[in-house]
């Protein structure tokens, strides 16, 4: 059967009704919520241990990044992400996964063109555009002072 891409998309749409959203949204909410709740527990723990607010925040990030990279290395983050969707993508763990996963995947292409370059496949644009936006804000802020 020959169908154009558009026809296929329409067919796909008619066969996968709103139920798709009803499935993905709660999963994303719960997955993202759980990750942030873990972050909050860690934050309270580090504050309790006497870290200053800013240091505690960094410690939370580093802990979550470590967990995410470890799970990525073991091949488990992928499995979580299949269910979690944006819930596992949007938190910092998803960012860490987006760096670690291509580093692992392209290991065979070597340390420079493989691991080193592909780490920035997704992190690159994120860092580029958020940095540029922040520099623009800095210029505006300095002008207004």
């Amino acid at each position, binding site marked *: 059967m020959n169908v154009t891409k558009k026809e296929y998309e329409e067919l796909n749409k008619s066969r996968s009704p709103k139920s*798709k*959203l009803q499935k*993905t*949204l709660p999963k*994303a*909410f719960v997955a*993202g*919520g*759980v*990750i*942030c*709740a873990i*972050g*909050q527990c860690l*934050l*309270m723990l580090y504050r309790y241990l006497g870290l200053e607010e800013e240091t505690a*925040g*960094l410690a*939370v*990030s*580093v802990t*979550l990044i*470590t967990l995410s*990279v*470890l799970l990525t*290395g073991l091949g488990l983050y*992928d499995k979580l992400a299949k269910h979690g969707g*944006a*819930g596992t*993508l*949007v*938190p*910092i763990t*998803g*960012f*860490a996964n*987006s*760096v*670690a*996963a291509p*580093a*692992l*995947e392209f290991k065979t292409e070597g340390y420079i063109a493989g691991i080193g370059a592909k*780490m920035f*496949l*997704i992190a690159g*644009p*994120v*860092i580029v*555009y*958020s*940095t540029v*936006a*922040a*520099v623009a*804000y*800095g210029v505006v*802020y*300095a002008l207004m*002072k």
Partner: protein
Amino acid sequence: MKQIIIAFLVGGGICLLGQLLIDLTKLTPARILTAFAVCGVLLGAVGVYRPLIDFAGAGATVPLLGFGANLAFGVKRAVDENGWSGALTGPLTAASGGIAAVLLLSLLAAVIFKRGLNCKAAK
């Protein structure tokens, strides 16, 4: 306990927004992450994100919006301290801890784990 629940609800809500974007607009994950980071910078710049962090704690800092907002806070602080040059040094100074940790750990993981082509990157 209350703070943990608030973090769950707010963090979950932000991720729900991301899922809506994915499902309704077919934006790729790379675009979603970039959009969230840039939106975070904007929200931090206009001053709405700091109150959200005060309210929701990790619920606001753990999503990538918090990463972006952190850049905005960093640039503001650097401009306050050093004037114009702060606009250039502020953003990455604020992000340096997280980025260095991600790079270091990912490199370590790539060296230690032997998964090669079996591991699918989240594209």
